[in-house]
């Protein structure tokens, strides 16, 4: 599930933003259709997660009307084995999953910033240690570890946030490695060196000169961390190790699978939660496409074929390429 993150320093090097400072405005994604679609879907789902639980009924309310098909009176998406309303559960589940997604995104971005950016900027033994630690965390398989740990957290403490912390602790290393590579390349730029020579304070250089260049990369890593967390939580829940006493899309899927919804043909119980995850993940991917295009302008849609049509010489194309990078 993390295979989309290019985890390798070499992979990042050429795509890292090389040249001079940019204004914040330039960092904002240009309005591509991908971005608009991505943001709209994500926006609707986020809005639903906030408002939904306020307007639907109690997701725990039981009734004797088990396995009602979608559309039956009062049950937009039908009911479960215990007569609970699937629609209400999904509203609460979406909220739970998003809370986990955002928490993991924030925690793992902070962790990866500490181990990636700070280490790379300060350099020396600290950097070596941080890099070694990051690489070790990266090669130790995360999910089995999460399963083993998840199994032993006392259930009554296994709330959403604890699950989020466990997922973040095992999921930050990839981002840290990417951030370190980018920081290294930014750190060695002339203007950073110039600031250092002119006696700027370390934290100021870090915050004013370096961080702005890292924002798109961090944003992209944040988005990846969210996808990873939502999928990871769903996987954990599916094994029965998810957050207890709170609805997430994963716990709904787990319940459905366990209560043999598949065998009994109750598709309305397990198809919608997965679809919500898929849609949200898709929206995040689309957003990430747009961020990628900022980080690496070569990915923007002016193809070589298009430029050739302009009748430019190879040298001119090269010049254009370079300008665009700037």
């Amino acid at each position, binding site marked *: 599930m993390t295979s989309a993150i290019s985890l390798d320093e070499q992979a990042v090097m050429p795509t890292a933003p090389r040249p001079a400072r940019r204004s914040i405005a330039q960092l904002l994604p240009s309005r591509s259709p991908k971005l608009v679609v991505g943001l709209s879907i994500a926006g609707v789902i986020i809005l639903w997660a906030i408002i939904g639980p306020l307007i639907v009924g109690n997701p725990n309310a*039981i009734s004797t009307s088990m396995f009602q098909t979608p559309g039956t009176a009062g049950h937009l998406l039908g009911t479960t084995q215990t007569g609970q309303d699937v629609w209400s559960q999904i509203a609460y589940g979406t909220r739970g999953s998003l809370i986990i997604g955002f928490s993991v995104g924030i925690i793992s971005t902070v962790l990866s910033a500490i181990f990636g950016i700070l280490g790379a900027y300060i350099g020396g033994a600290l950097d070596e240690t941080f890099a070694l630690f990051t690489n070790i965390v990266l090669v130790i398989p995360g999910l089995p570890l999460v399963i083993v740990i998840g*199994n032993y957290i006392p259930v*009554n403490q296994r709330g959403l946030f604890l699950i989020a912390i466990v997922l973040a602790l095992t999921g930050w290393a990839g981002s840290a490695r990417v951030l370190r590579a980018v920081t290294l390349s930014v750190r060695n730029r002339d203007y950073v060196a110039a600031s250092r020579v002119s006696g700027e304070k370390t934290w100021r250089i870090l915050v004013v000169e370096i961080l702005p260049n890292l924002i798109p990369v961090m944003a992209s890593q944040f988005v990846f961390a969210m996808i990873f967390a939502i999928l990871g939580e769903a996987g954990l829940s599916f094994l*029965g190790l998810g957050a207890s006493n709170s609805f997430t899309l994963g716990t709904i899927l787990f319940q459905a699978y366990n209560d043999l919804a598949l065998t009994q043909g109750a598709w309305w119980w397990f198809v919608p939660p997965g679809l919500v995850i898929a849609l949200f993940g898709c929206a995040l991917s689309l957003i990430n496409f747009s961020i990628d295009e900022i980080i690496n302008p070569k990915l923007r849609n002016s193809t070589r074929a298009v430029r050739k049509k302009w009748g430019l010489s190879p040298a001119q194309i090269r010049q254009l390429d370079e300008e665009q990078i700037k």
Partner: protein
Amino acid sequence: MSLGHKGKVLLSVVALVAATTLALTGCSASTTTKASGKTTSVTLFNGSVGNFTENFNPWLTTGAELQPTQGTIYEALFFYNMARSQAPVPLLGTSYKWNSDGTQLTIAVRQGVKWSDGTALTADDVAYTLNRYESTPALNTLGATWTTKLSGNNVVLTFPTTSYALEPQILGYIAIVPKAIWSKIPNVLNTTNTSPVGSGPYMLKTFTPQSYTLTKNPNYWGTGAEAPAIDQVRFISLANADAATSALESGNVDWMGGYLPTLRDIVKQNPKVSYVNTADSTTGVVTCSNAALGCTGPQTDVAVRQAIYDAMDRAQFSTQALNGFGEVGSPTLLVPAVNKKWISDSANATLPQSANVSAAKQALEADGWTVPATGFATKGGKELDLTINVVSGWTDYDTLCTLLKGQLAAVGINLTVNQVAQNAWSSAETSGKFELSLNSVNPGASASPFYIYNNYLATSATAAVGQSASTNTSRFSDPAIDATVKTIAKTDPSNTAALLSAYGSIQATVVKQLPIIPIYVNQALTEFNNSNATGWPSASNLYAFPEPWKAWDNGIVLKTIRPVK
């Protein structure tokens, strides 16, 4: 669209692969059944998923030993049927007798029995087995001591005290092994015994990690109705409920156990498929009830337990959690289908089926709780919050807890459901660090109520919170009950009048104290496909517990079934 083209290619590849493989598998399947012609076989699915690890060690009780080890490959002296009240069935023993004070047990060993390798089984083998069991601490799961003496064709066990209660465990749960083989093995637990030599109706033929086959033991002692008639028995793994269902319908599996939600439809559509629903054990909410032993929480208060008892809508549990396959239980914790005769007060025969919300609220109010019309009850500013542990993935139990949460909310109890892994669930209950736990009251070594009351109510079976309690996890402790249990253990099993009154006094306390709040009798569903064999246990003839995972009963079922002519 270009995607459409790719999709078609993929689909046709899929179809091709499917068709070829179907042809291949179809071929191989038909060759095994048809080419063998006269070889009859049944296939059994006992719920194993994943790989089998070859292990036929009859001394093990950890479940690592493959299931046919006990009862099918090796036999005990007698068979104790848990599915109904009946006398022990003689196997390697032909009769047994207690002396008058219950300190000496004389067992007559069957003569003319041979091990599957052709050597003779003698009383010496039996004496060796029982002695080795008794003298090895790691094997002696009974923790009892005795001396074993060989006397002609009899084996005599002498106990230091009256020991009627040990009878079923010794006679029914110790696999008799050949002395010639096992006396050479210094630590019997350290072997996986991959070429077992036993006396049971079947012996091992072939083994692979996903299926293994047993074949009829030509030296088996039984004749006529007691001799196995099916040539081969195959045990398979690698299936979930879905796969097992389709295998059952197609006749690939003859015998399986487990809850299938669509069972009634399957039976309707497949005349060859039948099922039997056996009363198994009472499902109940185990409460950590004894504050004196360290339990904390509102459930230590008997009024709260009574309120939970009254608030339960058991009819809804049965319909929605068990699809109507459950049976009405008894507040005495006994299973009426098996032990009706031991329920002394007919008022305690059955559990109420509908909720009595007003009684529940009254019980709480009488105890000083303030119960509002809506919302949760409070006492001294504290809300009535309880937490129940349940194993996640045990579908019926999980559903039951969801329903219970809703039902208790109606009487002002705020129930939190903790779905946990099985190990966490059992360790919470064992250590006493829980409030409520959904579990079942398992019968002990035989159908006698003694084992239930001794295991679930006696002080000797419990421990303070923080220490491991073996079976009495509710921490219930009552000197009067302890004394009664001791008396029963020393009572001659034939003295029914004395036993009934003793049980009655225990039952009177249990139904008031409710350390375990009973819900219903959990049913064990067993499904058969009758195309290859007949004579399976049925509701009218439960000659053994029908579930395919019941080790000792399996051997009995497998030698009783007959091939379809």
